[in-house]
């Protein structure tokens, strides 16, 4: 079968063999320790060798040799048929769905700005509030017999910026990535999420910035884990693989991963597709309340679901279950490993899901019962602003955070050979990420986005995230049909 990429070097190569040492996929090797040898078929185009080549001699390109082009059976279709014909296996993939035929609605939304009739605000000169509080809001104010207001506020999360880090488990990613995320979240005044692989003991000091996840496998979940967190997230589904479970192969369950997940070394860790103790909204309510019981009602409980066709009524059910926060992960959400057909064909884009959920909860007058976190393909600060204007309280980013740590989105996480040392447990590879430096880069990224958000809001004459939330008048659409505008709840540009 044809190779996908071709590795080339030019005459500036000094044969330092650095590329061979960096390549974790075996695409570049040093024969008898001296001569470079290229194995193009193993290359995943992760760009690690290119980045580390001291003379800039390397270049990776798509292989020019193609199958005969056909408008129905594309290159990948033929390649995948061959792979499955050879192996009989379910296709496994990673990162978010790359499908070009599903629109990225963010790119079709335009933001407003103030001109003449209302003044814009200069964020460098005037206060601009990016802090948000997420959790339940009480419908009324209670007063004591003395007339004073009774503090009846349920527990909240306070975010200094509306950007959080998405759930990525220890096992899918390395401990160094978890360290970088935890440290950055603490510095930024936001939250990171353990995913379902448990929380490594060395990260217990970051408990005030940590959200712990309870997924169907219940790996690493115990009373101490639940109480070493600012909030607890029940994971029902994720955008990349709605409706199916997880499977961490025994190969990745070694050393501390085994200890943290509390799964014996070398044994597969299977997360069943559903939680078998949740078959209804009533059962979900019960798990929410039992988690609150176990943690003394001191922590908000988040329910994370994938954006699917009936997301609005599902969100309505969750809002009525006693959960404080709903986290919705869209079609383009990332993953460490998911069956390709599921990743590319199941679920709906986050933009439509958030608009539909916000609208439905408002109509039912229960929008304030829950906060909404949106995720799934948020690439920059304007995507974040648009998501909030469509109705989210905050956003969370996973892939963007990994990119800040070096990821080049080669989508090979499921191989466990990540050359950037992120999605791997190989000690030789994980040490490629310095958690201190990583945290610094994450802090830079989120600070930069926050500044941009302030600037965008200032331009619109808005001075707080609170005033931006669900503010659909701040958005106009281009290249959208009437139905899409209707679901997004926005007008066409020029209207």
């Amino acid at each position, binding site marked *: 079968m044809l190779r996908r990429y071709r590795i080339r070097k030019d005459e500036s190569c000094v044969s330092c063999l650095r590329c061979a040492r960096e390549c974790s996929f075996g695409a570049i090797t040093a024969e008898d320790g001296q001569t470079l040898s290229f194995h193009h078929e193993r290359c995943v185009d992760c760009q690690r060798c290119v980045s580390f080549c001291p003379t800039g001699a390397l270049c990776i390109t798509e292989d020019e040799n193609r199958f005969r082009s056909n408008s129905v059976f594309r290159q990948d279709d033929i390649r995948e048929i061959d792979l499955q014909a050879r192996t009989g*296996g379910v296709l496994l993939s990673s990162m978010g769905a790359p499908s070009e035929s599903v629109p990225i609605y963010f790119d079709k939304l335009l933001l407003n700005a103030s001109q003449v009739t209302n003044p814009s605000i200069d964020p460098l000169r005037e206060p601009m509030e990016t802090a948000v509080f997420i959790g339940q809001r009480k419908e009324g104010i209670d007063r004591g017999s003395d007339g004073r207001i009774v503090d009846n506020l349920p527990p909240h999360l306070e975010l200094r910026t509306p950007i959080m880090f998405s759930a990525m488990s220890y096992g899918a990613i390395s401990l160094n990535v978890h360290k970088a995320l935890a440290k950055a979240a603490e510095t930024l005044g936001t939250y990171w999420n353990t995913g379902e692989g448990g929380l490594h003991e060395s990260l217990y000091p970051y408990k005030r910035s940590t959200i712990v996840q309870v997924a169907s496998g219940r790996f690493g979940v*115990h009373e101490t884990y639940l109480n070493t967190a600012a909030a607890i997230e029940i994971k029902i589904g994720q955008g990349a693989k709605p409706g199916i479970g997880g499977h961490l192969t025994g190969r990745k369950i070694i050393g501390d991963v085994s200890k943290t997940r*509390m*799964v014996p070394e070398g*044994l597969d860790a299977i997360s*069943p597709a559903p939680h078998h103790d949740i078959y209804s909204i009533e059962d979900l309510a019960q798990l929410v*309340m*039992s988690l609150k*019981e176990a943690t003394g009602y001191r922590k908000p409980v988040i329910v994370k679901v994938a954006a699917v066709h009936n997301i609005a009524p599902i969100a309505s059910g969750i809002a009525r279950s006693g959960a404080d926060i709903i986290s919705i992960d869209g079609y383009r959400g990332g993953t460490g490993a998911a069956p390709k057909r599921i990743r590319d064909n199941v679920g709906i884009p986050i933009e439509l899901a958030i608009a539909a959920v916000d609208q439905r909860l408002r109509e039912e007058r229960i929008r304030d019962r829950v906060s909404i976190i949106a995720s799934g393909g948020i690439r920059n600060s304007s995507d974040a602003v648009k998501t909030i204007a469509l109705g989210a309280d905050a956003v969370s980013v996973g892939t963007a955070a990994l990119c800040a740590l070096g990821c080049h989105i080669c989508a090979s996480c499921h191989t466990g050979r990540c050359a950037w040392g992120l999605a791997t447990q190989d000690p030789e590879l994980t040490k490629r990420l310095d958690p201190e430096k990583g945290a610094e880069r994450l802090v830079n990224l989120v600070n930069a986005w926050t500044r941009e958000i302030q600037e965008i809001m200032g331009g619109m004459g808005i001075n707080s995230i609170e005033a931006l939330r669900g503010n659909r008048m701040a958005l106009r659409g281009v290249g959208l049909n009437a139905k899409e505008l209707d679901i997004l709840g926005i007008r066409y540009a020029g209207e």
Partner: protein
Amino acid sequence: MKVLDIRKDGLEDIGKQGIGEVTITGCLGERYIGCGMKDGVLHVVGTPGNALASYLDGGTVYVDGNAQDAAADTMNAGLLAVKGSAGDALAYGMRGGRVYILGDAGYRAGVHMKAYEEKKSILVIGGRSGSFLGEYLAGGIIIVLGLGYEGRNITGYFCGNGMYAGTIYLRTDKTPPNLSDKLIRRSVDKKEKEDILRPIISDFASAFSIPAEKCLEGSFIAIEADKSKSYSQLYAAV
């Protein structure tokens, strides 16, 4: 030992009793009793509600009536002993400790139970269990004794489907109905019965003051995952 009435004293006050031995009476469906309990002994008189002893983390809970759904959910350590029967989703995701049910268990008992190092989850059901017993079993031991159901099926359908570690022991010679071809059924020899089953079953019997020999009578079969048919063979990386 303190005796408290759940109707008068409320769950919150009972929770404040701290370490020691406490009896609560008058239970009529109150949920989350013993939730996350780390130590102490709790005797429950009456019928507790759902999510009894969930996240149990070292405490001991005795129930003289029936338990409802989701008892011992995500339990980590300790003992739950129920003199009556248990509802659905018993011991879901349990990692350690012991759950003893003298009567029957409903659907989905022992789904995704696990074991890790010194932690080994043990679930013993005195009567019979419903369908989906021990699905996704990832470790630990499930024993169904079928007391009073001799000669009949003591599990429902889909017993052990998707299990990949751990063992289900059944006191019967009958293979469970529609047992998956990814599972192995074998008979239990005398040595295994004495070494593994006797200590657990004796402990179970003493918790309810019933004769252990009666529970050990007759032959046992064991159900385990067929390691040659693991999940990882399902996939092909793009």
